[in-house]
């Protein structure tokens, strides 16, 4: 009798298990996968910047006194072949003031920079051409055509070029404001 009860209980358990399994929700876990390619296009770009103004204050004397001002020009470029930075003037290369005479451009050139004579002005970039480094005594004229002042062969991140401008004036020049406009140009190679 006890054996019979056990057999019945076992059959009941099996039956419950089978019915329960049959009634349990069937989860269809068929998985589908797909791939997506993510593309990022990085455009080329180039920028040039400088800060504030380049003001030069000078008190002349009979022999001529020199005043200087430095411009920090920054270039950014993500072109791996590098960039070129040039400097140029407009057709009038003199520094014009309230009246004639003017502060003429120096006769010095990039190939042969010279010391400024009285009432002339110019620029220099250390280690460019024959300027040498560290000295402040020789200058070249900012010409009317683009003059290369920096040339690179790699990308640039806030790469700085220091351009120093200088005037030499004596007492024959009327006092007042003398200015000139120059243009920096940055292009990739």
């Amino acid at each position, binding site marked *: 009798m006890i054996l019979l009860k056990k057999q019945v209980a076992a059959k009941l358990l099996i039956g419950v298990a089978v019915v329960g399994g049959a009634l349990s929700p069937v989860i269809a876990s068929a998985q589908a996968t797909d791939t997506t390619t993510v593309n990022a296009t990085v455009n080329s770009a180039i920028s040039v910047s400088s800060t504030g103004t380049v003001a030069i204050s000078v008190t002349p004397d009979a022999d001529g006194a020199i005043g200087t001002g430095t411009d920090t020009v920054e270039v950014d470029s993500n072109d791996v072949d590098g960039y070129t930075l*040039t400097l140029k003037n407009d057709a009038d290369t003199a520094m014009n003031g309230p009246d004639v005479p003017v502060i003429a451009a120096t006769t010095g050139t990039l190939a042969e920079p010279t010391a400024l004579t009285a009432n002339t002005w110019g620029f220099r970039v250390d280690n460019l051409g024959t300027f040498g480094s560290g000295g402040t005594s020789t200058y070249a004229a900012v010409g009317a055509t683009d003059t290369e002042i920096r040339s690179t062969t790699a990308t640039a991140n806030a790469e700085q070029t220091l351009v120093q401008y200088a005037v030499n004036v004596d007492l024959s020049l009327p006092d007042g404001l003398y200015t000139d406009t120059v243009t920096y140009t940055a292009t990739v190679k």
Partner: protein
Amino acid sequence: MLRNLLSQNVTAVFVLATLLGVLAVPVSAFAQEDTSEVEKITLSPSSRDLKTDAGATVTGSMKIINNGTMAYDFTVYARPYSVSTEAYGPNFTDQKPNADLYKWVQFQQTEYSIEPGQTIEVPYTLNVPENAAPGGHYGVLFAETKEREISGTGVARQKRVGKIVYATVNGEYQTNGALKEFILPFWQTDTPLESSVRIENSGNVDFRASVSTVAKDVFGRTKFKYTGDPIVLPGTVRLAEMKWETAPNFGLYNVQQTVTFLDQKHQNSGYVLLTPIWFPIVLGIIIVAGGAHAVLQRRKHRN
């Protein structure tokens, strides 16, 4: 004791004088730059390659971004583009026959004002002439800031950034190029390590070259790798430089150069010895001194 005291005082005076000399600032007439405001102009993309037909109209645009701290006005215009040197110094004035793309350019608007943080899309159109010769035509599109008035004697600055356009007009044109030479000096006395190649374009349309330099040390470890894709304009030779700017002052490297353009591939390899210029002189003196010493010692032993 008195001598010691005097010696110490002299030493103290000497040190003080040296410090004063170092700290003394020479007075000169110069003006400090005002760094509080930044005027910055960015252009993207910085170049464009295109192929077109004679008589076609091509549209495009360039983004001008003001990521400085000052608002400014700028103008856009086009100019010729050619190169003056093998290092590709740009020329924006000479009107060479294939530097005529600037004549095709038309801007809907040429004057703009832009605030800090602002981006302006500048559209342009290229009206390719019906009689445009097949082959390459080149020009540059500029965005130029307007000068600011300055309150004293000094220099006012304008800044301009350029987008170089390389256009090929379809038709019968010639593509032809040649490797002129690899440049890889064995003994180099200063950094950067110089590695370059000269590529000639004798056709009438531009092509891009793929250049690379790999420098390995004596153990075979790669210490430097450079890749570039310089464009070579027709009728020019381009010096493509692949400098290792941060090379150590002393070392022996196995350098491999590769250039690929059109259907050509060229390779060159060699050793580069980087040493200061005084090194072989010192080495020579040591060798001679050592040899002389050895000879003298031998004579001494004989005697």
